[in-house]
């Protein structure tokens, strides 16, 4: 591509593309380690479960990958705005460049490779390495951990406007607060009694829509003790923003003592609870009254 030599001035035409590449390389070389080493450990959702850790790794990798892309485009635009600015008052035309097939081909190939690689890696993470990455997989999850039979099953029931939890392994007891044992595999079955909610346990890295009549399964493996926030992530009416609870990951001993105290406290009401079911349709369901 020849560029007409239209300017009277220095004998050498500045090699704009080289300058841009150098600026980009320097900025990227600074940005990427900063992102991976400094920002990464602070990216959500943390490491309280291995799925949350997978999400955080995904977020870190993508930030680190997208940063040089952002920098490259920004450097080009900002450099061009400065270098190719028309300084006089007259309107002067530039060279009639219409395209450059090798450049376009390279761009198409390069972007396609990055995108397909991201999709492949994302699919691998989702299905193979992180058992669904903490997201709700519906009633027939595809990414299932191998030891599924050992999972602690917790049914999360979303209703307008609070969360309750049922533990089928503990006499189907229902509680309005969530505690989980550490270093354990947990299997959430998220459902709703009325409208669509979304169970979002931030530090656990769990997000699963609570849809009436649907059993939405999400897998997590807890690591160390800690507290986690539970919020609703799907607009469900007046107190949507107030569907907030704090849950705890505690030692298995503490968990067992908590759940037996819950069983004692809920004992008078236990006979009124329906047997554990994947979905929940207690009457009344249509127009009340």
């Amino acid at each position, binding site marked *: 591509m020849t560029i007409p030599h239209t300017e009277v001035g220095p004998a050498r035409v500045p090699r*704009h593309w080289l300058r841009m590449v150098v600026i980009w390389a320097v900025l990227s070389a600074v940005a990427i380690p900063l992102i991976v080493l400094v920002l990464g450990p602070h990216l*959500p959702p943390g490491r309280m479960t291995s*799925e949350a850790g997978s*999400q955080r790794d995904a*977020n870190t990798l993508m930030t680190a990958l997208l940063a040089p*892309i*952002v920098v490259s485009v*920004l450097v080009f*635009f900002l450099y*061009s*705005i400065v270098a*190719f*600015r*028309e300084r006089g008052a007259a*309107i002067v035309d*530039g*060279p*009639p*460049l*219409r395209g*450059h097939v090798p*450049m376009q081909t390279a*761009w*198409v190939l390069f972007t396609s490779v990055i*995108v*397909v690689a991201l*999709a492949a890696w*994302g*699919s691998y*993470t989702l*299905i193979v390495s992180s058992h669904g*990455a903490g*997201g*709700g*997989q519906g009633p027939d*999850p595809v990414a299932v951990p191998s030891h599924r039979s050992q999972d602690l099953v917790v049914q999360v029931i979303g209703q307008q406007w609070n969360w309750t939890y049922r533990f089928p392994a503990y006499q189907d007891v229902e509680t309005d607060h969530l505690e989980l044992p550490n270093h354990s595999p947990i299997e959430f079955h*998220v459902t709703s009694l*009325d*409208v*669509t909610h*979304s169970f*979002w346990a*931030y530090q656990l*890295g769990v*997000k699963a829509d609570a849809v*009436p*009549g*649907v059993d939405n399964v999400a897998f997590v493996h807890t690591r160390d003790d800690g507290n986690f*926030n539970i*919020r609703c*992530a799907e*607009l469900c*009416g*007046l*107190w*949507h*923003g107030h569907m907030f609870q704090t849950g705890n990951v505690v030692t298995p001993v503490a968990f067992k003592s908590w759940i037996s105290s819950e069983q004692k406290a809920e004992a008078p009401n236990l006979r009124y609870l329906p047997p554990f079911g994947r979905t929940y349709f207690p009457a009344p369901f*249509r*127009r009340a*009254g």
Partner: protein
Amino acid sequence: MTTYAAERPLQPAWRGLIGFNMFTALALGAGGWFLGAWIGGQIAVGNDYLIATDQNDVGILMGYLFGLIGWLGGLGFFNYPVSRLLGRPATVREKESGGAARYFTLCTDHKVVGIQYFFGVGIFFFIGGLNAMLMRTELLRPVERAWPAGQYLSLMSLHGTMMIMMTSAFILGPFGNYFVPLMIGARRMAFPRIEALTFWLVPPAGLILLSAIAFGGIPTGWTGYAPLGTEGRSGMDAYIFAFMLIGLSLTLTGINLLTTILTMRAPGLTWTRLPIFVWGVLSTSILMALAAPVLIAALLMELMDRAANTSFYLTSSGGSPYLYENLFWFFGHPEVYILALPGFGIVLEILPVFARKPLWGYKLAVAGMLGVTFLSFMVWQHHLFVSGMNSGLRPFYMLTTELISIPTGFIFLNAMGTLWHGRIRFTVPMLFALAFFFNFLIGGLSGIFLSDVPSDVTTHGSYFVMAHFHYTIMGGLVFAFFAAVYYWLPKMTGVVLNERLGKIHFWLMFVFFNLTFFPLFAAGFLDMPRRVSTYAPSLQTLNDFVSASAFVLGSSMLIFIANLIYSLVFARIPAAENPWASRGLEWQVPTPVPLENFERIPIVNSGPYEYGVEGAPPTATLGPVAVPAAGS
């Protein structure tokens, strides 16, 4: 031959109010409302659940329906069908002369429709923006203090729905209607009366949506998810009816523009010479024609669940909320490309004019737009990744969503190539066009996070999504809209917009737009869900900063309105015929644009981007009309 309405003899001003115009339409619409409400009351009498709820959905819907019929009748939309039924001859045009009054009537001049759209959509856009300012007022504090939680939800729903409804035709309405015939060398659109109809459906849609306030508000946000929408108060009927009207308007706009571009191009205007803006309009029209009907269907079913005791979306009676979600997002995802593609068209149209170089990689740009159009129908389930959808399908939708970023990226390459070795002039339209690329870069790349399912588990339903779509829609489309306004208003109105106010508007808007929305990525990462009026107290500083920036952003819009009023009403400095020395065909016609656009159909010589080509003739030969001098 075309027929014109006869020139009226001088008459008292008030006589002009009588006849088929907007005021008659308002009166008949109001009358229709009361008639329909009464009919609905008769239909639903004795229905015990309507008595228990103290609302009559059937009455309200009938009221809206008859009000709409009254509105359209008052404007005269039934006159032509009736006259044809009575055997009178076909005509194409009506009421195209008559001064300022014709802007308030059914006028088949596409230029008049363009101006009507500009003001009609613009007024509702600013009402939506006002709601946003009121939302940010509430979010100054972590607990509801300004307005109660229920009103906040209505504010938020009104803001979102009004914005989506109005910005879907933000560019195609004013500028597509005004300039596509000029750019393709046609005298009119393919279906002028339908074109007028697409505009005159917008004010009732906007008014009906606002009337939701009187009926208990809207609890669902712009997505209207069943079953929450089904249990809402009558304000939901307003939402559904208004959105259905806009769906109809979009469908008709798409069909009209598609037909016009396909069949009415001037001789010499081959596909490779078509302005890129027209390609953008073409792609958008395909999406409008194919996706908007799905919205109408999804909303109609929700309406029937509410008013007719059906259970399309109620699990307990055999329906499913998933049906609504999938139908809605099958429309909803092409909808966001309906919003984005015209923006691409505008900025790629503007960049060559102010870089004084041809559009670099024209065919790649077209491929990008058509690629986005095609792929946009294959990605919608990325809104449903954690909803309990078939988990085996998630990698497929992850792939298609990632793939759609490839054609989107072509647009950036086109822009970069056009700027390369350009002779760039920083006029206000160019500033907005450049800012588009900055904003869309951030918005588009944040979409990559959302397309990756593990990352989406972190960010779905949080303020991260909010920041993403505001960057693409507001940072993209709305900035492109203002670029188009500053670029084309001198031709549309014959008046110069004040450049200094324009630059103040731009800088305030650009800086404070970024200061408002960039921190929202952090808010989403910090566990703040969307659509909430309460949040963790630790996020108050962040939210206060965002609210303060939002208020300044809102004030930049007021500066724009001030500029409009000052320039159009008071200063009224006449604009040159081609103030930007653009080679576009639309700039070759005189200002004000004659009724018939061209004395004779032009013969197109080349594409409109022949900058830097020695001795290039004008883009089209208009006949005896003088060639505009560059720099006039």
